[in-house]
């Protein structure tokens, strides 16, 4: 695990300096680094079938014993899935920005790899302060990616992104510290996940602390109404930045809820569940409706992310195996499908110099391969059976129905609206009469390779999701051992 983080971090440094040798070298460097990191991860695959609550790898070294902070990393099925997803999307991100970046490519790739380092750190950290550290550290390179290589309105978007995440992060820090101080009162302070699990808390304190965590994760997820940073940041970011943002940065929010917020405060979470589910359902519908109203290709995809991440929230707060499995599945499937759509948006912008769909149309005739790919990922994102997103959303809805049938009904409306905006998007860009003034070159071999990889992933997730479910199974079982029943009214 340490090797993995080191490879990514030092790889970023290497990419930064390789620019001096040749401007084309950094992108090869980051491809190699991501591939190497994936190789590191491979030996730990096949995690299915272990007992709930065990760790594939676990490492703990004292860091700041005076403050009870240790360098503690742990890998289980959930972390494994998300780290693997991050690295794969890292490869995709490099491919998607292959010849988009002319300005300081070394620094660009370095920031890309450092963002990945931060994200993987978030997925691995088991000490809450370490987790917070990675949580914040991944923001800085991402901020630079948007602020330096972004589009026309990048300053505002980057700033908004940073301030939203940072402000909610500070609340989480306060919650983390208060939790540790309360649980470890009188004794040695400790921020280790295991020391904080099951700590005795006053119901009121627990509820407030839970809110601190929830806010930070809800901003990142993003849950309605904390999503306003997302359309700006996604739209203004360079393609690789959008791919990383949508593909994995959003997943850190969901991961945080699953790993920390729910197990640390099971009772408070159960009490909060109606609100969370309502927010999730609102997000599903609101995101879908707003997506439909967009003219900007990237903004549309961004709002569709709000909608899809609403399902994750719904699934997590249903507290049953089916729905939580669905949420995890949704994280992976949405990561892949949205990354592909953002890559498509980037490719279109690179060729047409606009993201405005009103100025597109009839592109299928000139670029059939692009059209076919776009159609594939559009229907994937609207939840066509046979593809990963369908499995995920179905599991979430099926799981939730057992608990909150009416909310399920509401959320299911999101599936219909998703179909509308996704097909509408395809119609406005690729179909209709061909326009003479647009003559985009079609996808080349490199882009087709990346697209094919993602198509394969979605098909596999859709047709044979069992391996993913098996890997996540122990984590889900472990989570559900906590007591999520609502206390009797006092």
């Amino acid at each position, binding site marked *: 695990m340490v090797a993995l983080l080191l490879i990514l971090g030092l790889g970023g440094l290497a990419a930064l300096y390789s620019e001096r040798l040749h401007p084309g070298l950094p992108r090869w460097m980051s491809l190699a680094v991501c591939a190497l990191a994936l190789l590191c991860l491979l030996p730990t695959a096949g995690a299915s079938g272990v007992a709930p609550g065990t760790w594939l790898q676990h490492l703990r070294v004292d860091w700041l014993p005076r*403050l009870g902070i240790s360098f503690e990393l742990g890998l289980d099925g959930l972390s494994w899935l998300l780290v693997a997803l991050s690295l794969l999307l890292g490869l995709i991100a490099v491919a998607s920005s292959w010849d988009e970046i002319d300005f300081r490519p070394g620094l660009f790739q370095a920031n890309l790899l450092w963002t990945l380092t931060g994200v993987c750190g978030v997925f691995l950290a088991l000490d809450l302060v370490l987790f917070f550290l990675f949580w914040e550290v991944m923001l800085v390179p991402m901020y630079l990616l948007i602020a330096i290589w972004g589009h026309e309105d990048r300053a505002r978007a980057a700033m908004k992104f940073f301030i939203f995440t940072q402000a909610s992060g*500070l609340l989480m820090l306060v919650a983390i510290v208060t939790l540790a101080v309360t649980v470890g009162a009188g004794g040695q302070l400790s921020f280790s996940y295991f020391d904080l699990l099951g700590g005795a808390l006053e119901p009121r304190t627990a509820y407030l602390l839970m809110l601190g965590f929830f806010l930070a994760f809800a901003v990142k997820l993003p849950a309605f109404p904390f999503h306003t940073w997302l359309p700006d940041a996604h739209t203004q970011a360079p393609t690789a930045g959008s791919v990383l943002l949508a593909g994995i940065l959003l997943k850190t929010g969901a991961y945080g809820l699953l790993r920390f917020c729910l197990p640390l405060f099971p009772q408070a979470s159960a009490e909060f569940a109606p609100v969370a589910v309502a927010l999730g359902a609102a997000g599903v519908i609101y995101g879908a409706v707003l997506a439909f109203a967009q003219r900007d290709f990237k903004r549309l995809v961004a709002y569709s992310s709000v909608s899809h991440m609403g399902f994750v929230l719904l699934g997590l707060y249903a507290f049953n195996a089916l729905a939580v499995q669905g949420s995890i599945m949704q994280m992976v499937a949405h990561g892949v499908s949205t990354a592909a759509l953002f890559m498509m948006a980037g490719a279109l912008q690179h060729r047409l110099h606009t993201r405005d769909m009103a100025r597109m149309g009839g592109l299928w005739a000139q670029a059939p391969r692009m059209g076919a790919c776009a159609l594939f990922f559009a229907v994937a994102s609207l939840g066509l059976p046979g593809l990963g997103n369908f499995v995920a959303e179905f599991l979430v809805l099926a799981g939730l129905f057992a608990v909150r049938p009416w909310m399920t009904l509401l959320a299911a409306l999101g599936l219909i609206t998703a179909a509308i905006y996704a097909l509408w998007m395809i119609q406005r860009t690729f179909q209709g009469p061909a326009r003479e003034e647009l003559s985009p070159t079609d996808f080349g071999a490199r882009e087709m390779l990346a697209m094919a990889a993602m198509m394969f992933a979605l098909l596999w997730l859709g047709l044979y999701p069992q391996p993913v479910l098996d890997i996540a199974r122990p984590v889900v079982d472990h989570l559900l051992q906590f007591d999520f029943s609502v206390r009797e009214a006092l």
Partner: protein
Amino acid sequence: MSGAELQAILPLGILAGGIILVMLQIAFRRHLATSISLSLLTLLATAAAALEGGADMPVTPLLQADSFARLFTVLFCLAGAISTLLSTDYLGQRDDEPEEYYLLLLLSSLGACVLAYASHLASLLLGLELMSVALYALIAYPNKAPLPLEAAVKYLMLSGAASATALFGFALLYAGTGSLSFTGLGQALDANPETGVLLPVAAVMVVAGLAFKLSLVPFHLWTPDVYQGAPSPITGFLASVSKAAVLVVLLRWFSDANLFRFPALVQTTAVLAVLSMLVGNLLALLQDNIKRMLAYSSIAHMGYLMIVFAAAAAPGQRDFALEAASYYLIAYTATTLAAFALLTMLGAGEGGREHCQLQDVSGLFWRYPGPAILLLVALLSLAGIPLTAGFLAKFYLVGAASGSGQWVLLGSLVIGSAIGIYYYLRVVFYMSRRPGEYQSRPGMTRFWPVRLTAWLLVAAVLLLGVLPQPLLHYLASIL
């Protein structure tokens, strides 16, 4: 005074001796390089002597030698040495005979160190005035420009008024308690708990005077103008050492006299803290000059620091709060000096004008990547992003405040920090502007000692953020 006592305040002796030496050298044989080397040597020798350790004992009723005092003596002397180094480059192009400048810097450092040792209102006043009077002259030293003069006069008038107010407060305290030493004050207040009007008035005056020196809202009005007008190395010194010294002596006063037991006093510090955090951060948003921006940011940081007084008032939290304050002061000093070091380096060698507008750092990433990364680290540390000293400092404060249940203060801290991100990042954004998007392109100093100092400072900021365990351990052991 016995030999053992002299031994205990050896650092102060070395510093004072060095000052006399430099003065004589200037009087008899004016030579710039000698003055600079002697000053540096004096400061480093003082720091070394303080590091060496010594006996913990009261030295006359005025001074208290202990590890706490020695720790901050080391910090102030190192900060003084850094300011000296930065000034060599800065003054090199602006003034003809700046030997006395270094003498003044030494005097100001001595004042700060005396404050670190002070355990009596008389020595507090002596240290405070020694430090401030030297600073008046330092601010006005590059006297060919109007801004420094204006800043110096402003600082002189207002600071003088503040000192006078505090002094009057001391007099009233003496009238009320009959004692001037910190512990004596505490005992007198214990023995004689009657609530006349004398002591509250005295407390208000002292608080106002010292809050002025710390530039807490609403006593902050001088800060931006003075920061902007003063030469950059001196602004760095003013922002870090002069504030840290006042805070150190306040901490000692509060704990020796156990002033934490007076709820009204503690609440006053809390109100000042909240105001400073919010107003400082909000006004910083409006600044286009980086020095002014840092001035408001320093107001906000002093506000964060004032949290420790309320935190220390809770039972059982005193030691942790003092530890938090000490760490915060060290981290803040290193970070502030780093930021001002970068501002000093920027535009050196191009006439007398300073280059501290936001436009001046445009594209710094591409023109001077090294210094730009240094400034980035300093700003991130001020903003409290992990892996820097600033984060751990803020973490400490959150720990102290949360342990004592100061939720209002914590809320202000969160809001203030969130606002703070905006103006720190704005600088970063300007630094990342691409070539062709800006006009102003000031150069960068080529003087290697200054560059080396800047790198060392940033290394210190990172080291304090990543591997501070020895320091934390030491802090915990002395408090």
